[in-house]
């Protein structure tokens, strides 16, 4: 999933302090799972904003709405009738949903209510960790299904740096060394000899280096 984290309330207040009618717009997908932008968080943020404006002696309408997704036209259309009522929309979706909402409601100011962090997993309740950087050319077949691009701090493709110690990264003793994980996996798969195969210089043009990316699938376009 796309993992996001809540923005500090002060930052959000800074965006909407002059607004009179605010819509807090949640998303039922990834940000709900990582508890940063689902229905529950929409409610919490709306209450906090109401409290803030009340203390300021200002009458501000703060409404709540959570869509199934903010990255699809059909769900975003659900607020077509009401969007114009608001002079600020705070989207709690990931950066994708925030932008798509803004694209759809061009004359409405749309602000981010979360910081979008990475593509990752729920490791345990309240702990999410990164697994993928969407480089556009997957190398997992060669690395025992452990990604060195997202999990090595230097995205090294041919083995660990000299800083790998007791299975941990030199950056942080709690961070697993990606290459330790790869070696462990290759060992478990009885494929450790594959480590010595040189990984060629990577084509990063499918990564952000090649500019904004696009996938076109004629077979599903019809």
């Amino acid at each position, binding site marked *: 999933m796309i993992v996001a984290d809540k923005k500090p309330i002060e930052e959000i207040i800074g965006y909407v302090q002059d607004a009179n009618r605010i819509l807090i717009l949640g998303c039922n997908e990834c940000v709900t799972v990582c508890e940063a932008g689902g229905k529950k968080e929409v409610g919490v943020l709306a209450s906090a904003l109401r409290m803030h404006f009340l203390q300021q002696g200002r009458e501000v309408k703060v409404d709540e709405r959570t869509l199934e997704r903010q990255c699809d036209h059909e769900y975003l259309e659900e607020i077509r009738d009401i969007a114009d009522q608001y002079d600020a929309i705070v989207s709690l979706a990931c950066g994708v949903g925030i932008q798509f909402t803004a694209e759809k409601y061009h004359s409405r100011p749309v602000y981010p209510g979360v910081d979008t962090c990475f593509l990752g997993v729920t490791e345990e309740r309240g702990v999410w960790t990164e697994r993928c950087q969407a480089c556009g050319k997957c190398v997992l077949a060669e690395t025992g299904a452990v990604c060195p691009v997202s999990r090595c701090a230097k995205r090294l493709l041919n083995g660990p740096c000299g800083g790998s110690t007791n299975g941990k990264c030199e950056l942080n003793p709690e961070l697993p060394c990606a290459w330790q994980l790869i070696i462990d996996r290759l060992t478990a798969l009885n494929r450790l000899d594959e480590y010595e195969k*040189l990984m060629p210089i990577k084509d990063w043009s499918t990564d952000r280096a090649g500019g904004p990316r696009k996938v076109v699938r004629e077979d599903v376009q019809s």
Partner: protein
Amino acid sequence: MSVKTPSRLEKVLAGGHMAVTSECGPPRGSDPEPIKKKADMIKDHVDAINITDNQTSVTRLCSLASCIHIKLMGVEPILQMVTRDRNRIALQSDILGAASFDIFNILCLSGDHQNFGDCAQGQNVHDLDSMQLLQAVRHMRDEGKFLGGDEIKRPPQMFAGAAANPFADPFEIRAPRLAKKIAAGAEFIQTQCIFNLDKFERWMEEVRQRGLHEQVAILAGITPFKSAGMAKFMAKRVPGMDIPDEVVKRMSDTPKEKQPEEGIKIAIESIQRLKEVEGVRGFHVMAIEWEEKVPEIVEQSGLYPRPELS
């Protein structure tokens, strides 16, 4: 033995001599005098001098310019180049720049993470990794071509080196990692500082079992302790460093004023023992901000005078 480049280091090794290299860190300013002074102190006692490339990710005068300064003094530089700060365009371009000044040695590294330095909020590049940089250097030299395939007019002639840490984890790939660097094109290896000699010798045994010592010239890394404090700091704080307790104790048990002398003594003893290890082809003496001691270490280890080459 035939050589592939005009590198003095390569010739010393090909002549069957024990090679001696050392390294100097550039200053944090634009005055070239500190690097020239350091090089001048050690130039008669070593075959070539590494110039570090923004080591520990602290911004300094660049390795390439420093190499040029010492080259102009008649000293042989080893250009250290990390993949942290440059993409493949800049790496190839700097290699050509170095080659234009007849710099004949390069050490290919990934570089310390920027988190440890003075620009912790900066991006790192790592377009290539250290093994891919080795491949790039060899490709440019041996094929005479850029990575993009075009021909290079007057290709670089560089003796290609890499670092190895015999003490690093994961344990299972200590020798395979070296084999991979050789396959990528490494012709000489400078190792991490060796304090755990027993463990280094076990690593060399694995290296010899696979015949790797015959495919690459291994220079053993030696660093003298200036003080017990330095030994303790390196043991605890420097990632990938293996310093046995008895070595730290030996430094700590020495009265403070005698500690520098003891540190030098340990370094000399290490060299003398490791000289006998089959496959050790020389030494890389890293006297960190203590370059003036390099001549003494080299002399007392029986590595002086350095061979005269025709």
